[in-house]
């Protein structure tokens, strides 16, 4: 191995009763890359996020962060190590103001820092508004800002473009790239919008029925017959 990976998954499996949600998934996330995770519904993408962020313990296999085993650790401790996530179904603190949402994640009183982050996601005008009162697209961006407020090294985005219109999707792509460059972040992103992922990601991993069926550059993945069979379909863009 030339450079040590930021995050390594080694043969991670997770079973829920009779359902094998993850089946021996191995994956290395390199420092500074944007790695996309695609696959059909129920392929285990969110379960993989939950295993990485400590919400679900793996049934077997190991997760290593900078070489140290972290599987089964508490989510709040993992967050402080530098892993932050958003949720597929928004989980903002809906009654709290946008500012307070960010300051909870910061863990300190830092109004100025929170306002800077809000400006980064174009929400500076809504600082005192309750998070639950924002428009849907704004809530998506606020959740990304909240994850940033924890000061992460790895940002895990779970379907950040879901429900966004094409203009917002394009803006999201630019935002994620900006964040990677400005904060030296590594990004792991789940998204169904394939053209967006092809443009945005350095590498793509494809899950199907809990197995990783492909891994490589967007170009490689797009031509992979297994991926075409399971997910993209013939004649996909």
């Amino acid at each position: 191995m030339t450079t040590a990976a930021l995050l390594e998954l080694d043969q991670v499996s997770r079973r829920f009763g009779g359902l094998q949600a993850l089946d021996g998934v191995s994956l290395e996330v390199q420092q500074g890359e944007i790695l996309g995770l695609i696959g059909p519904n129920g392929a285990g993408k969110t379960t993989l996020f939950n295993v990485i962020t400590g919400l679900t313990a793996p049934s077997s296999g190991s997760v290593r962060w900078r070489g140290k085993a972290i599987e089964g650790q508490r989510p709040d401790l993992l967050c402080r190590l530098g892993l932050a996530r958003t949720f597929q179904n928004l989980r903002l603190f809906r009654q709290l103001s946008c500012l307070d949402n960010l300051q909870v994640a910061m863990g300190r009183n830092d109004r100025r820092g929170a306002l800077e982050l809000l400006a980064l996601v174009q929400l500076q005008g809504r600082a005192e508004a309750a998070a639950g009162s924002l428009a849907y697209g704004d809530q998506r961006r606020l959740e990304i800002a909240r994850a940033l407020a924890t000061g992460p090294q790895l940002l895990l985005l779970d379907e950040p473009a879901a429900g966004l219109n094409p203009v917002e999707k394009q803006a999201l792509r630019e935002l994620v790239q900006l964040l990677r460059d400005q904060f030296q972040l590594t990004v792991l992103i789940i998204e169904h919008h394939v053209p967006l992922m092809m443009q945005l990601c350095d590498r793509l991993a494809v899950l199907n029925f809990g197995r990783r069926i492909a891994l490589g550059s967007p170009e490689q993945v797009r031509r992979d017959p297994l991926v075409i069979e399971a997910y993209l379909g013939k004649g996909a863009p």
Partner: protein
Amino acid sequence: MLDVSLLVQMLLGALLALAVYLPLRAGQLSLATPGFYAVGGTVAALLSTRAPALAGDGELYPLSSVLLELLLALLLAGALALVIGGPVLRLQGIYLAIATIALVEILRVLLLNSSWFGGAVGIFAIPQPFDGPEGYLGAYGLLLALVCWGCHWLEQQPLGRAMAAIRDDELAARCMGVDTDRVKLLAFLFSALVAAAAGVLAAHYFNSWNARQASFDASITSLAFVVLGGSRTWLGPVLGGLLLTALPELLRPVGDLRLIVFGLVILLGPVLIPQGLIPRGLINPKRP
């Protein structure tokens, strides 16, 4: 109509309401308040009647002895809250409420059946540190002001904000680096301290203390204070406690019907004014 002794009871009501509010701010429906209130009152009643050294030489019971009782009561209630809070706060929602009701019942039965605590008769002739209700009014006013200031300060701090975040979404709070177990335990601890302090003064004020102070009724009453007043900011429970304590005295002719009034408040409050009398943002003028 509003005589001094009613004012004292109103301040006591506001303090108990704040004790219910603190865990509720962190989304934890704990009904343990009367339990810790009874711990405080029992410590005060026992020490002031059984320890001659504390009685002093003057006609009035010395205030320094009350402070000593307060200190011991806070230590005892705090230790109890930390020991019990660990396992109990693993429960969520209504199950936590049931477990804390059980805690109050255990304390009540313990007080009722132990002759050391005065049994069913209770402890009588608790000495008076003040020569009239005005003194208690001042003492309760000071305590309430202190607790209100503390709550106001807490709400501006990361800890208070983390409490509100847990109430909105505990799982998300955990994923954002909040040690939710610790925050919930601290909220439970603060609640116990406020209730115990209120109990110490109450034992002197009522002049007698018995097991009936820790009852399921009292749990529901103090919950009604918060439901009516609102639980988003400390002003809500204070207002609810003041109003609902005064109400039955102003409606004295209806007597025991006041429990029905409390029931109606709990029933109708969430329907008619879901956020209580003081919703979030009412005292935050910066909100657009």
